């Protein structure tokens, strides 16, 4: 039983990590229907910014709390800036292009950003400072679930709730939904579509940055390649949950994480990804628009 609980928490943490990145994926997908392959890189850049800033600050002797706040802020700011710029450079000119063109542009961007960071910061793994301290009150449970796991779980939940509220009830959220469904009509009711799309990228990227900070601190290391695998998994999670759906992204991430964790725990980690992807295929066969995705409305 204890083993089960251990695996459960390990799966939840992993799932929450996927979910954090999947949130941004799903937002961007929701609004411009683009699988933003560069999102993983945005997350990576967020983590790198946090790494650089926190290292510099700690060398300069700032206190831990200040480092956390400033590094988080910097990560969010620069990630958003990158997300914004990538959209303007690589996707906006392709708004009216065939559907797959922006996808290739995104793949190109992803390769570019990876190599940009590789060249600027070398391919070596860098130790990421432990920004989430080990809380004393967690000590009795530490063999089951660590402090950083707990923080990740809590933050992911908060993010999901916050985002859902944002999309459901705020003006910008409504504008996002309208834009995602019919861009021309959104303009005709007075929505500045460009600005809404930019805002989506900024919010999505900032989320990725928070994810980057937490995850890198949890794993304790980064290099230029961390975005790629995380990105693919997050994308899978987003699809699993129903792409475009915020709670779906979280649910998808958690299911993916749990599957991998239990597959590892009870079967073999050799095939954890095989289990994960098989589950994806299985779920999509029975629910073609993902778990919480709305079936595409197609009136004939």
């Amino acid at each position, binding site marked *: 039983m204890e083993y089960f609980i251990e695996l459960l928490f390990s799966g939840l943490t992993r799932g929450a990590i996927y979910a954090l990145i999947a949130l941004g994926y799903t937002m961007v997908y929701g609004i411009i229907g683009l699988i933003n392959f560069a999102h993983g890189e945005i997350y990576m850049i967020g983590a790198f910014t946090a790494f650089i800033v926190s290292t*510099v600050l700690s060398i300069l002797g700032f206190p831990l709390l200040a480092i956390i706040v400033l590094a988080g802020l910097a990560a969010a700011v620069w990630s958003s800036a990158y997300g914004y710029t990538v959209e303007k450079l690589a996707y906006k*000119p392709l708004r009216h292009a065939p559907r797959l063109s922006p996808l*290739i542009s995104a793949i190109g961007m992803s390769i570019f950003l990876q190599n940009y960071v590789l060249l*600027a910061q070398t391919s070596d793994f860098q130790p990421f400072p432990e920004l989430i301290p080990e809380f004393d009150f967690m000590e009795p449970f530490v063999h089951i679930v660590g402090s950083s796991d707990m923080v990740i779980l809590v933050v992911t939940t908060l993010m999901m709730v916050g985002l859902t509220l944002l999309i459901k009830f705020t003006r910008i959220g409504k504008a996002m939904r309208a834009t995602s469904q019919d861009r021309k009509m959104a303009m005709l009711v007075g929505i500045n579509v460009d600005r809404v799309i930019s805002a989506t990228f900024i919010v999505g990227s900032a989320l990725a940055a928070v994810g980057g900070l937490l995850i890198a601190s949890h794993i304790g290391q980064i290099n230029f390649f961390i975005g790629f695998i995380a990105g693919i998994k997050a994308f899978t999670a987003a699809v699993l949950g129903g792409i475009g759906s915020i709670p779906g992204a979280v649910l998808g991430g958690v299911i993916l994480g749990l599957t991998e964790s239990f597959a590892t725990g009870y079967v073999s980690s050799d095939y954890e990804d095989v289990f994960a992807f098989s589950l994806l295929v299985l779920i999509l066969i029975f629910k073609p628009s993902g778990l919480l995705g709305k079936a*595409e409305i197609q009136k004939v």
Partner: protein
Amino acid sequence: MISFEELKRSFLVSLWFVFLTFPILVIKANPIERTIIWRWENMFFVAIGSFVLSILIRVVNTQKTKRLERRSASDSDTTTSEPLIQVILQNPRYLYPLAGAVTVFALVFPYLFDTYQTNIMTTALMYVVLGLGLNIVVGMAGLLDLGFVAFYAVGAYSYALLNAHFGIGFWMALPIGALFAASFGIILGFPVLRLRGDYLAIVTLGFGEIIRLILENWNEFSQGPSGISNIPRPGMFGIELSLEAAILYIYYIMVALVIVTIFVVNRLQDSRLGRAWIALREDEIACQAMGIDKTKTKLTAFALGATWAGMMGVIFAAKTTFINPASFTFLESAIILSIVVLGGMGSILGVIVGALVLILLPEYLRALSDYRMLAFGAILVVMMIFKPQGIISNVRRTYKYQKQKSGDVQ
């Protein structure tokens, strides 16, 4: 020519990029030695570089608008002047000699260049065929397949394993590999037919990963990550060829296969089946209402696309003589997809050009060494922006029709 306003905007752009690249390009922090290196020179390069680029883009843009304005101003009958390429493509008077010339060039290529160039060209030709295969699935049938490389792997391992266990030779393996891959195409196709668009994409991606992971983990079957070595090169009538001869031989096999593929794909495209694929891509519901069997048509596309990937897999195994799962990653699928989209979806010539560009480009970018992949990524983006439809966009063929029955369809 450049107004002050434009200068100011370029300046702002440059300022933005300086800000953007600041932490990553300028600071190099080392948490162990606790040192910080400030690379201010990078900031300087970014500032100058982005300023100049921005000005350049502005100049190009203004000239483009001017040209457009001039054209609409002159307004002499708004003939939509077709691009040269399309004129050539549509007129057999130009097309046939051109195709002939290209074929002749391909045939003498190995005698003009060294083995290395021939080898590279063989690789490029393989990607031409892969691209054309994927083009059936993505370009024609509109099914976004991000796991195409799985079929490539199936072909490669078919040959490697059949050879290792049963001593089956290259020429036997070629059709068998194709057949295996096609069967996998159908096996994958069945469950995912219900899925639309990007859901399909992720499932195919997952499928590609599953195949690779199985190859990687199931040692007894595939020898796992250490791969299978000493796969024989194709022999000619049982004679083993020297390396140079074998490279030449594979090259010519590829030239032949490319020609066959172009022929077949071209015929498919202009057939009843090809039209059904395109219609399916445009509107599934209308398609079904017109009496097209969605399942059968989609499966055919999957299977046919996979067939070519399977064949190329066999060639790949024979060419490198060594295969391991690491050659069949998602990135490979992404590259093949890029070939199709960048070249021009649905356009055969486009895919060929796309393959040559994307495969030869990194080879010739070797001079840039470290900056190679950086440039590759940037070029993908830039090409997409300047040619969103692909290098050569597909033009639907028109059918000539004579009332009298004897009239031949051309």
